């Protein structure tokens, strides 16, 4: 091994601290060479080692009767009965998407898909959570278009439907957009594959695309903040090849249907380095690889480059000794590069050779598991109190409620996302019962009577104002979206997007958010089975809002017992479940109409939440409701408007009468009190519905009737002349809501 002079600059370039370097010296008992330094740098990056978050993530509830695989593997798995598991995970591709939106988002989709099918699951659904700056910014429009077509380009080509997601626009994300993708697959419970290098002597096989010089050190980049200089650097971008990934998917599933595989893992962040050391570390074995046998796209690649390349669409697997032939045959059938590149050993080490000469030798566990771990200091930001202080007396109540409602519907965060999801194939595989456009997507599970409901949610502004409550609400809202389709939540995945953990205020947000997730999951009895942490989301010293994105999976026992959010039939009665309070803090109303992002987020009582959800699920299962929609951004008025205009088969009006009961008008109409669901119910079933709710301890009020061509919301019986009543033609309401995003994009 060549010796190397380790300089301060070299360490900085590899983002290793002096202490971390000392630890490396201890582990190796000598100086690392260039390749080894690179491997430590990648594996000990924040992205791969979770060094700032690990001690906190331990607090999350990860067990439950349905959990088949918790965190630690490529994805989590929960039992859905019939011998099947739902396998799912969410992941971020924020930094790459900022550099090159199309390829960044596309390769994000590629990565999460591989996480799912390496587990032996066929992916059946994708969702995405996106955060951008305001659409009045040309670069944001460019990013949005690029990201959406990148997600579409990859997912559509793979034949995996993108069935839902969410998008929020806020200037805080302008220079640090978030691109989080969620994928769910179905596997047989007894055929789940894990990433382990078991069986000394077994062959280690590389397959997929060839290795090129793409994205070397992507993992380290994802663990870095951005500044103008970094934007200039523009490291080699990874280009996705969904066609090859589709072949990889089919080849994997074909390989897995036999019994020749022992373990398998995709080469994601930190490429061959992470897959090799993690597979060995999980099993307590070692691996020895011959780098000359790694299929390569470019001549002259060094061991350093081969080990750290993040070329896409590659896999590493361990097969049973003597079964190499079968494996190779299947890979060739699918036109994939394949090569036996090494063996499993009992040394506990990752040993790399180049034409027989050792070029690196590191204990696998040291790389994969013994990375640094920090309990970073945390303290609330100085501005926190100021943020939370919101004196309602300084806010004039709403005067023109019509205009306020239209302004909210025109806010891209609230507006219809049809422009986005029409670019996604959301129907391929013919499982999609409820398409994007309702609270949750619903997919039947072929071969069973069941269906799964999926939703992703997070309100970053709530999390900024109160990280604990905000995180709780993210879980509650996600579950509520599932409840509106009649599904009981069975598992959670998360993607925790935060700023720079070396800032105590960011750590404070992180620690509190974890507490919130924990309490909410425990109350709703739903485990977190997989997840991802994305830190250093800051640009020019400005951190994003803490954004712990939540993806949740719900089970519907009988596929035909589900509901959608829009009103169905004139004459149906509108019933509101839950209680409206004076919750104006952190609302979209406050932002859009008063240009303030301030106050305390709405109060969430987990017991009330649980009761409302259980009640809704029961009502849907008993076939007692025509539609169910939760109140979220924009409050009750926006929820009612959406019920009127979001239907797939046209629009319908409604007449609603509300009582102030001592509330402000704006709080009543646009406040974002939690644990509220708008139902529509056939006339003859209203009594029954109210009775079920009463028995469940849930407040239920009859607030109006579906029908006509106008949305009318009267407060305390007031008339239009008073200027407070909402009275709008549904065509106007629809136009404002449906075309807001295309309108905002039309500025180009």
């Amino acid at each position: 091994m060549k010796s190397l002079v380790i300089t301060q600059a070299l360490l900085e370039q590899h983002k290793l601290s002096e202490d971390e370097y000392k630890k490396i010296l201890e582990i190796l008992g000598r100086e690392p060479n260039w390749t080894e330094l690179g491997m430590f740098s990648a594996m000990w990056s924040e992205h791969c080692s979770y060094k700032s978050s690990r001690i906190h993530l331990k607090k999350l509830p990860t067990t439950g009767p349905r959990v088949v695989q918790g965190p630690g593997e490529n994805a989590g798995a929960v039992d859905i009965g019939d011998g099947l598991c739902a396998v799912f995970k969410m992941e971020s591709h924020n930094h790459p998407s900022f550099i090159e939106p199309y390829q960044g988002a596309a390769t994000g989709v590629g990565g999460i898909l591989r996480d799912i099918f390496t587990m032996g699951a066929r992916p059946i659904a994708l969702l995405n959570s996106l955060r951008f700056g305001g659409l009045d910014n040309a670069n944001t429009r460019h990013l949005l278009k690029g990201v959406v077509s990148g997600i579409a380009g990859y997912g559509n080509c793979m034949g995996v439907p993108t069935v839902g997601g969410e998008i929020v626009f806020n200037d805080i994300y302008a220079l640090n957009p978030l691109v989080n993708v969620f994928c769910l697959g179905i596997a047989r419970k007894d055929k789940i594959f894990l990433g382990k290098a078991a069986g000394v002597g077994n062959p280690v096989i590389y397959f997929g695309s060839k290795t090129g010089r793409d994205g070397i050190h992507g993992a380290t980049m994802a663990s870095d903040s951005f500044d103008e200089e970094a934007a200039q650097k523009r490291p080699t971008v990874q280009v996705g090849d969904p066609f090859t990934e589709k072949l990889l998917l089919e080849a994997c599933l074909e390989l897995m249907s036999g019994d020749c595989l022992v373990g398998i893992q995709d080469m994601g962040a930190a490429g061959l380095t992470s897959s090799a050391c993690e597979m060995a570390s999980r099993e307590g074995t070692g691996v020895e690889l011959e780098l000359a046998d790694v299929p390569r796209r470019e001549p002259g690649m060094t061991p350093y480059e081969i080990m750290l390349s993040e070329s896409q669409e590659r896999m590493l697997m361990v097969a049973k000794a003597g079964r190499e032939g079968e494996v190779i045959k299947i890979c060739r059938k699918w036109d994939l590069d394949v090569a036996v590149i090494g063996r499993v050993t009992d040394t506990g080490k990752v040993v790399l050779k180049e034409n027989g000469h050792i070029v690196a030798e590191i204990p696998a566990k040291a790389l994969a598991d013994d990375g640094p771990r920090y309990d970073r200091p945390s303290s609330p930001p100085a501005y926190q109190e100021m943020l939370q202080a919101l004196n309602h007396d300084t806010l004039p109540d709403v005067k023109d409620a019509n205009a306020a409602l239209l302004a909210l519907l025109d806010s891209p965060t609230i507006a219809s996302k049809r422009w986005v999801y029409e670019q996604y194939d959301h129907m391929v595989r013919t499982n999609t019962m409820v398409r994007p456009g309702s609270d949750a997507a619903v997919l039947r599970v072929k071969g069973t009577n069941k269906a799964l409901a999926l939703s992703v949610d997070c309100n970053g502004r709530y999390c900024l104002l109160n990280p604990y409550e905000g995180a709780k609400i993210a879980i509650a809202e996600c579950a509520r979206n599932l409840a509106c389709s009649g599904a009981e939540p069975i598992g959670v995945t998360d993607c925790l997007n935060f700023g720079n953990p070396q800032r105590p205020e960011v750590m404070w947000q992180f620690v509190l958010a974890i507490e919130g997730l924990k309490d909410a999951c425990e109350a709703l009895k739903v485990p977190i089975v997989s997840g991802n942490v994305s830190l250093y989301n800051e640009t020019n010293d400005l951190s994003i809002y803490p954004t712990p994105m939540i993806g949740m999976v719900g089970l519907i026992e009988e596929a035909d017992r589900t509901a959608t959010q829009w009103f169905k039939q004139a004459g149906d009665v509108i019933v509101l479940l839950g209680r409206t309070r004076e919750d104006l803090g952190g609302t979209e109303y406050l932002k859009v109409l008063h240009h303030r992002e301030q106050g305390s987020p709405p109060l969430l009582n987990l017991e009330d939440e649980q009761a409302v959800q259980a009640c809704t699920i029961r009502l849907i299962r008993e076939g007692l409701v025509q539609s169910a929609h939760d109140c979220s951004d924009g409050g009750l008025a926006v929820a009612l408007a959406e019920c009127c205009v979001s239907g797939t088969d046209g629009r319908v009006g409604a007449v609603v009468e509300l009582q102030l009961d001592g509330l402000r008008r704006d709080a009543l109409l646009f406040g974002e009190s939690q644990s509220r669901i708008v139902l529509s119910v056939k006339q003859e079933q209203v009594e029954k519905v109210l009775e079920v709710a009463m028995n469940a301890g849930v407040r239920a009020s009859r607030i109006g009737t579906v029908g006509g061509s106008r949305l009318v919301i009267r407060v305390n019986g007031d008339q239009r002349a008073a200027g407070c009543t909402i009275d709008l033609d549904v065509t106007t309401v629809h136009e404002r809501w449906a075309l807001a995003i295309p309108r905002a994009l039309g500025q180009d």
Partner: protein
Amino acid sequence: MNIGVVVFPGSNCDHDCEYIFKDVLGQSVKMIWHKDTLPAGLDAVVLPGGFSYGDYLRTGAIARFSPVMGGVKEFAREGRLVIGICNGFQILLEAGLLPGVMLRNTSLNFICKDVYVKVENAATRFTNRCESGQVLKIPIAHADGNYYTDPVTLAGVKANAQVIFRYCTADGKVTAEANPNGSLDNIAGIMNADGNVLGMMPHPERSAETVLGNEDGRLIFLSMLSAFGKSEQQSRLVGV
């Protein structure tokens, strides 16, 4: 009925087509790897949707050279039923089994949504269970569905009643607004002069079950069964 579904590298809707014919309509289905030859005894061949060869170069351009395509051409020449859906349609065009080409959608975007199509010719082996002029709601999902051909060919296709589906409004008007992709003459599906090869961009297999909220697409498959001489009762209908 014995159905063969061809699997190209990158086919996506192969399982969906298999599901419709086998699990929903109770027919026997064989999946045919594109490097294999067509097995004997098939009554119809389906070229499914998807992204064969990633849609690289041009949609369908590489798939048309797959070894199986020789057999498919022969099968078509013998007058037996071939249906190409979406990417399958694009492959049929590139292979010369149907006239014309597909250009990018005028929006340049991939579009996935329900559209309405009007049945222009109900006297075919693919549409005999429809009424002439009937409007069907069937989803599309493509980026290259903008049908084009030269005026002479178009005139021939029209004169021969080979235009089977046109994009239309919900009440059956063939208008520019109802055209989702810029397709010439609102064409959504055409067949060959002999009437045994159909290509269509909309996906009937996605709208053939009540659980998915729409059964209009089922008429296409039932028509094929009828053409083959089986009534709906005879074919074991699995109620889904």
